[in-house]
């Protein structure tokens, strides 16, 4: 087919009766005509969707719409179709158009180019709202274009996704605003050329306003004549070709938008420009809190921003051994010296606490010190008796030269001897006045040699007597007058007479009963009392056990200890008595003592040839001046003392059982305490009693130590096991664990405790993690708020 005839057909939108035919019928007629024609003249009458899917590139089709067009003119138009509306058009011109040229010579209403993806829509007048919305561009095809000679209505180019709009602003509907209210909302592609004023309400986050670039201006200039030609207004070319009158609103790319979305104003700028200025240019708290620092700090900070800081509280808390020992012997220090090989120093130190390390610590003492030993949580407590016995042969420490002060001590038992010992070592003349013919009080008089061996005892007595400044008067019995005399002769008088009057009961036959004190004293003398085969001891305490042991030694076959309550006997004394065969019977209430023995409350006879009563002793104080107040408890008088041992007479002090009954170690502790008080008084110094707090065992770190399989029999073995509670053992673990390297050790001038080093935490490095305190085996490091 070399040449075809140009066929023009006309389709009418009204029927023979001049009535409107439906869009459906009209479309069928148009489609039929289009199949054979090159050009259609449509005398439409408001039919919709004119031009829908007609024409093609191979077979172009021109459609001239002469009548009133319905909605969606050029809807789904294809490339090759040219649809020309001679007048104005209704809504949605070019709806879903993908290639047709749609020319409207008049105005078009709302929705022009909605969802258009190709082709051109050219409007010779103005358009209504929502033009160029949802317009697409498929990159494989040409961009859709919208040309408007006049102006566009509100909400133009919403969600435009690639379409190009040209708004020439010629004879606009609203001369003040050719693009309507809020154009370009949601626009993500394409651009809009416009000429004339706008109201600046375009979506700033979607579109940017610029003058046309050279390329853009070239694009527009090249196409403008064709548009004007199509709408028949070529005469306007010159008027519309002033580049300066044109502007472009182009879609902002997502990348550009991401950069924009840091907020309308950076906060730092807001603070500087607006916030601070609101307060006259400064911090709003500067007047009420001058100098208040509010700048940022981190969560983990060293220095002043820590909530706590570590303190190396060496020797701040007492080890249990030191705390519970009535003499407060610092056993941890002894053991440290032993660990360091300073054995002689260790022994001497012990002697400076007690004159009887071997007899008391090493032999008869129940060792209160180690009953709370922390080491027990790991394996066994430290054996303090081993330590005591090691000192047996040590010489007395060097005494200070005599100061000229003199103290009389009435009573040469452990309490009195302790007072004398400490005073003498410190240069005070100590004069002991003892009623008996030997020193030692009950230790010497009543404790069986089986329990406290003569060898040990004699060594310690001779060491005692070797001490300078010490004077002993044996067989000195005192009266009130004599005491008054002593008060004149001496700076102080210390009463340490103990309890040497047995307590007895007054049941029938009580005259048949021997007091334990007398029995024991006799047993240790040359003339022990006659002892029957069957012996009953009334009162099953530790003295009762000593009585039982002595009774067995003196010929008894069977010893029964009776008590009205559960026997109080414990420890070595009880073990010794039981080993010899003594039995305990309780509760037992004595009704009567006869020649046959004891008759209990129930009438049962407990056969005995010897009955000994052992229910305690009380002080005997006929010599005591009336100036000394006593306190009466349970029918006996005891001297009333304060915590230093002072009595109501300021020249008389009292120590030991005469204050309150206790163990030998209590008497030694009281003696040391009162001696220290006197030494302070002589020097005019303030005396302070032992006030150290007990260490919390939770503060120690026990897991550093492994359990030993046996307790050990040498003092070195004890030293090795000691945990050094509360006293730094210089192990460097804190220095090692500190994660910031804040802790270091340095040497210092030794203080009174003789420690010549300290560990220090550097505030500038420490973050207060507490690892030092959690690691310290001895419980030295503590974290405290500061």
């Amino acid at each position, binding site marked *: 087919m070399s040449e075809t005839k140009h066929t023009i057909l006309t389709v009418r939108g009204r029927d023979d009766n001049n009535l409107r035919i439906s869009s459906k019928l009209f479309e069928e007629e148009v489609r039929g005509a289009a199949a054979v024609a090159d050009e259609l003249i449509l005398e439409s009458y408001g039919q919709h969707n004119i031009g829908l899917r007609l024409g093609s590139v191979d077979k172009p089709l021109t459609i001239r719409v002469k009548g009133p067009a319905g909605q969606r003119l050029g809807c789904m138009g294809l490339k090759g179709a040219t649809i020309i509306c001679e007048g104005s058009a209704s809504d949605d011109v070019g709806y879903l158009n993908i290639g047709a040229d749609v020319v409207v010579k008049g105005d078009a209403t709302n929705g022009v180019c909605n969802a258009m993806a190709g082709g051109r829509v050219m409007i010779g007048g103005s358009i209504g709202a929502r033009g160029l919305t949802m317009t697409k561009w498929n990159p494989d095809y040409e961009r859709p274009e919208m040309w408007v000679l006049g102006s566009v209505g509100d909400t133009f180019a919403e969600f435009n996704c690639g379409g190009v709009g040209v708004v020439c602003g010629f004879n606009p509907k609203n001369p003040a605003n050719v693009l309507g209210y809020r154009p370009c909302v949601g626009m993500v592609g394409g651009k809009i050329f416009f000429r004339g004023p706008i109201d600046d309400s375009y979506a700033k986050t979607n579109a940017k306003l610029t003058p046309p670039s050279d390329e853009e201006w070239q694009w527009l200039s090249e196409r403008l004549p064709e548009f004007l030609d199509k709408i028949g207004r070529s005469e306007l070319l010159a008027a519309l070709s002033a580049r300066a009158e044109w502007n472009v609103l182009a879609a902002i790319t997502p990348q550009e938008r991401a950069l924009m979305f840091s907020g309308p104003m950076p906060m730092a700028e807001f603070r500087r420009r607006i916030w601070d200025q609101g307060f006259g240019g400064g911090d709003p708290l500067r007047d009420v809190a001058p100098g208040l620092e509010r700048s940022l700090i981190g969560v983990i900070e060293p220095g002043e921003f820590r909530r706590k800081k570590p303190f190396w509280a060496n020797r701040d808390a007492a080890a249990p051994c030191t705390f519970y020992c009535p003499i407060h012997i610092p056993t941890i220090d002894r053991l440290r010296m032993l660990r360091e090989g300073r054995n002689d120093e260790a022994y001497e130190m012990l002697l400076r606490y007690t004159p009887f390390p071997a007899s008391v610590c090493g032999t008869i003492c129940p060792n209160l010190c180690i009953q709370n030993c922390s080491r027990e949580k790991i394996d066994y407590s430290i054996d303090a008796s081993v330590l005591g016995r090691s000192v047996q042969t040590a010489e007395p420490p060097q005494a200070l030269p005599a100061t000229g002060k003199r103290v009389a001590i009435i009573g040469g038992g452990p309490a009195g001897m302790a007072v004398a010992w400490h005073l003498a070592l410190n240069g005070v003349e100590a004069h002991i006045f003892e009623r008996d013919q030997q020193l030692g009080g009950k230790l010497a008089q009543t404790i069986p040699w089986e329990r406290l061996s003569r060898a040990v005892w004699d060594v310690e007595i001779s060491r005692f007597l070797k001490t300078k400044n010490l004077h002993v008067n044996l067989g000195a019995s005192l009266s009130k007058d004599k005491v008054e005399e002593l008060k004149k002769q001496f700076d102080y008088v210390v009463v340490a007479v103990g309890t040497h009057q047995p307590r007895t009961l007054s049941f029938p036959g009580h005259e048949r009963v021997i007091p334990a004190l007398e029995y024991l004293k006799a047993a240790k003398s040359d003339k022990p009392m006659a002892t029957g085969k069957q012996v009953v001891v009334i009162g099953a305490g530790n003295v009762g056990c000593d009585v039982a042991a002595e009774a067995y030694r003196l010929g008894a076959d069977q010893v029964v200890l009776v008590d009205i309550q559960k026997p109080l006997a414990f420890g070595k004394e009880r073990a010794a008595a039981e080993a010899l065969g003594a039995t305990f019977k309780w509760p037992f209430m004595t009704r009567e003592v006869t020649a046959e023995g004891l008759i209990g409350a129930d009438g049962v006879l407990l056969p005995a040839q010897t009955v000994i009563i052992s229910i305690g002793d009380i002080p005997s104080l006929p010599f005591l001046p009336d100036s000394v107040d006593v306190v009466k408890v349970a029918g006996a008088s005891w001297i009333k003392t304060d915590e230093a041992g002072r009595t109501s007479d300021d020249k008389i002090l009292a120590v030991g059982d005469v204050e309150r009954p206790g163990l030998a170690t209590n008497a030694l502790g009281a003696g040391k305490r009162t001696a220290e008080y006197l030494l302070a008084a002589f020097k005019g110094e303030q005396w302070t009693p032992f006030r150290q707090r007990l260490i919390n065992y939770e503060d120690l770190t026990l897991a550093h130590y492994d359990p030993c399989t046996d307790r050990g029999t040498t003092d070195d073995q004890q030293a090795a096991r000691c945990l050094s509670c509360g006293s730094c053992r210089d192990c460097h673990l804190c220095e090692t664990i500190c994660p910031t390297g804040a802790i270091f050790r340095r040497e210092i001038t030794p203080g009174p405790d003789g420690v010549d080093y300290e560990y220090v935490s550097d505030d500038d490095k420490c*973050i207060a*993690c507490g690892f030092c305190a959690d690691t310290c085996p001895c419980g030295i490091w503590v974290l405290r708020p500061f």
Partner: protein
Amino acid sequence: MVSVRSIYTSPSSLTYHDLPWIIEHREDRCTLCGRCTAACPVGAIYLTYRRQRMPKLDVLQKKRGNEYRHFTGIRQHTVIEKRCIGCGMCASVCPNEAIGPHVNDNEHRSAFLLNQKGDAYKRGGRRNAPGKTVLDRISFGRISMLTDPALDAGRHEFNINTILGRVLPPEEFLRRKLTGEWIPPTREIFPFIIGSMSFGALSPNMWLGLLQGVAYCNEVLGIPVVMATGEGGCPPWVLKSPFLKYIILQIASGYFGWDEIIRAIPDMQCDPAAIEIKYGQGAKPGDGGLLMWFKVSKLIARLRGVPEGVDLPSPPVHQTLYSIEESVMKMIQTMSMAFGFRVPVYPKISGSTSAKSVLNNLVRNPYAGGLLIDGIDGGTGAAYNVSMDATGHPIASNLRECYLDLVRQGRQNEIPLFAAGGVGKNGNVAQNGMALVMLGASGVHIGKYIMQATAGCLGNEMGRCNVCNVGLCPKGITSQNPKLYRRLDPDDVAQRVADVFMAIRTEVKKIMAPLGRSQSLPIGMSDALGVDDKAIAERLQINYIC
């Protein structure tokens, strides 16, 4: 009775798996840097040394015995005072993800032992009732698609502000306008209000950070957010600043800080947004407050007009008020007069069955500018657990009843109701707030949500953290200790305030647009609401949906 125990157990002894939070520590990852123990606000964790016995068990040979292996770890304390609070600061500072708290999903025993030394359990936070709230369950079901004009939250313009203050009926308004009579003051504000948190309960950096963010919202973003001060005064420079207009000043039963406010009135550049008279709060209805002495720093003392380092009690009731009539008369009138009747004044009460009585009284009072009701899920810096968990009234039905009461009287547009208490408890702040709006609230107050969203408050409804009351806030939100509050950057808080309100604005639009509303807040638009529980639906008079 003295006894010796090898392993100490007392009635309060617990094991680590009795505690609400269990520290999980991975020795294989731990570098022993000490940060976790340094960061822990309550000292719950410590370095521990462990010794493990490795017995040599050889049947055929004589060399028997034990060897020991030593190793370290991080362990948690089991005493009540040092129990892990689950805040997770340890995890946040750990360089190796070696440590962190995990919630104990077993029954935990500490609940029985928190009442040590006769003191009942106190904490910060709010009702610890995890799970969806009634507000969370409400959905917006009346969607406009083809029936009404559809709206596009992103495209259309919205007016989502609300009115704070007494709104006169139109005829009365016109009458007064013509005769020149007094017209009650109103404010157009954003319907999400930062609820009362005092300068004192909050650290300086938090409080000022919030206000800075509020100022930013107003002056840069154009969102008219206001914030309530809580009781405890306001720094004089702030009172005299242009930002006062974004502040609702509170007066409460402790009357703290009012000397500075009264002193500053002549120098004020602008009026405050409103005056809130606090009669009650949702977290601890009928209970007072106590700012502990250790929070009364020099600064706080100065702001509150009190000596430093004393306890500051706010009694449960105003000491000189004996009836609703008198309260309303005395306080609302006085506060209105103080600011020349130019500032709305409204009371804040706890959610309660007596709320309606208060409301009806306010309706008759010409000066009352609104009513704020704070429900049981409201938060606080410090309260007895029993007050928080079991005292009070949930906001939803309380607000709804009050609103419907106004509707019956035809006064629902005159006196705005504000609701609070658990808004955003599970993060759904806009949804919760809009549900309350549609149940009848003119706006909502949010406090705890703001702390969580703008400052990273770690508290939750599983008992996590909640130590606001003891001044140990690891984020520096509720502490007066500079070592803690300086961890908080006010600029960051302000930025988050801006972020949060921008997002709330978007979400409110996303809720309103489908309902076909853009030009006024849908106050009382309860036909849009649905809930999947018939009883709730009936009680709230909204749709039952399933």
